[in-house]
């Protein structure tokens, strides 16, 4: 993978990489590639993905009654910038 590609991947995840960091990851990818070669040795035809540690179903559903939630103060306690009870960010352009 190219350094630029890696930097773009990072930006899509909303963080920036320095050239050194990108180069480091480039290196990691090549080690990963070798590790992934080990994947190819495993025949997974007709094998279903395992999403959870157990193949178990649940039948639990939560009753629709108001329970615990936070006051406006508690909800905003960790927010850096607040105005009239709202969270403030620079103008968002879609």
């Amino acid at each position, binding site marked *: 993978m190219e350094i630029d590609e890696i930097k773009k991947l990072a930006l899509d995840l909303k*963080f920036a990489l320095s050239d050194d960091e990108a180069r480091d*990851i480039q290196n990691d990818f090549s080690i990963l590639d070798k590790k*992934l070669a*080990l994947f190819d040795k495993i025949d997974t035809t007709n*094998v279903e993905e395992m999403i959870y*540690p157990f193949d178990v179903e649940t039948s639990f559903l939560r009753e629709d009654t108001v329970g615990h939630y936070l006051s406006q103060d508690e909800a905003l306690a960790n*927010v850096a910038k607040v105005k009239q009870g709202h969270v403030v960010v*620079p103008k968002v352009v879609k």
Partner: protein
Amino acid sequence: MKIQDYLNTDYAQKCREAYNKAKAIQDKTNATITFIDPQKRLNDKLEGRLKGVAIALKDNVSTRDIKTTAASRILDNYIPQYDAHIVDLLNKEGAVIIGKSNMDELAMGGTNLTSYFGLCHNPYDLSRISGGSSGGSAVLVAANVVPCAIGSDTGDSVRKPASYCGVVGVKPSYGRISRYGIIPYASSLDHVGYFTTNVKDAALMLEVLSGRDDRDMTSSYNPVENYSELLNADIQDKKILIFDNVLAAINNSEIVDLFNSLVTALTDKGAIIEHVSFNDDLLRAMLPAYYIIANAEATANHSNLDGILFGHREEGESTDDIMINTRTKGFGPWIKKRFVVGSYALFEENQERLFRKAQKIRRLIVEEVLSKLKDADILLAPAAPGAAPLIAGQTTDELSDESLIADNHMVIANFGGLPSMTVPMGYIDNLPIGVNLTANPFKEQVMFDVALAIEEYTGLGGAVKEVL
């Protein structure tokens, strides 16, 4: 230190001592991120099975009104507005929490070298790592500060540091302990775990921490047994499988010898020993599969860390800039690496050959271990191929069998949600080395029983290492 030491004593005094001792060893070990003065809690009327017992919590356990950082800069000012479920349980049983312990950043690591607050030192040799990601908790128990500390285990993050620090480390079955309030790493692999100095305490802690929590939709309905009461070191006719692939991949003959002596002792106690071998190719693929699944899930899990609603917000001209600056400055370099790889595996064009392939390999591995354990009780192997490595960087060949198999085999229990624990096995060059037991899902009782038998043989129950 044992839990028993607190019960029916002047626990207030002991709690204060624990708190002060944690502070005293901080310079040498860096085991704690946030100290919690127990005075306020000691003013409460305490009742329960952990009445007055000092406990430390890994700093990924949410504690209401107490800073919870997951050892990351991005959360270095985050104050939860709620308690994790296990904190409710601990409080209900009278425990006294004296600190939030150090860990690898966002629990993503096996060394505790990646913490924003600096690395953790091993009480047995301060120039060595504690192991991770639950390094601080392992150290606080090993250094005789608290009888119990909570950690989390996604790939072996309780069981490996337990081996390096010479303590008992438990990862129960998936869903046995509620994850509500635990800052996640990889949701389908995360388990709440804990450290103690002896098996009896470990059994008691499971009783306290287990049980159905409706807020966690992966929480188990399985009944919680009286593990500590039912503890029985009689392992006559218990079937123990020896994990040959791991043994074969360990280059340190001392460890192999220690392990074989243990196996002989277990045989003498009446256990039925059988050797098992897994498909080597499958085992080698296990770590890469883990890496892909864990990092993919982690990347998604931490998409909420952007500075807007909580955490350390950096400034920016646009909201996008704020997110980017916050995350760039907030995450350590190892985290960024893992995110890039993890998200790469989730792209539509890559998912089939990476993420989903890894999930299929997961199934093959779990099927194999379950089929072997079907008519047996325990899978046994050394917990690590060596003692705690030196802090001053040792490079490992990441593609060797030692790395892929011997160093990382405990991932099997995360893949399949099987209960697994590490207990001290002995010492090499005065450094601890542990043995790892894995049982069938929700068969913690037999796991504790065999662990107790091992503890009786080694005589290492309660072993600690004073730092000062």
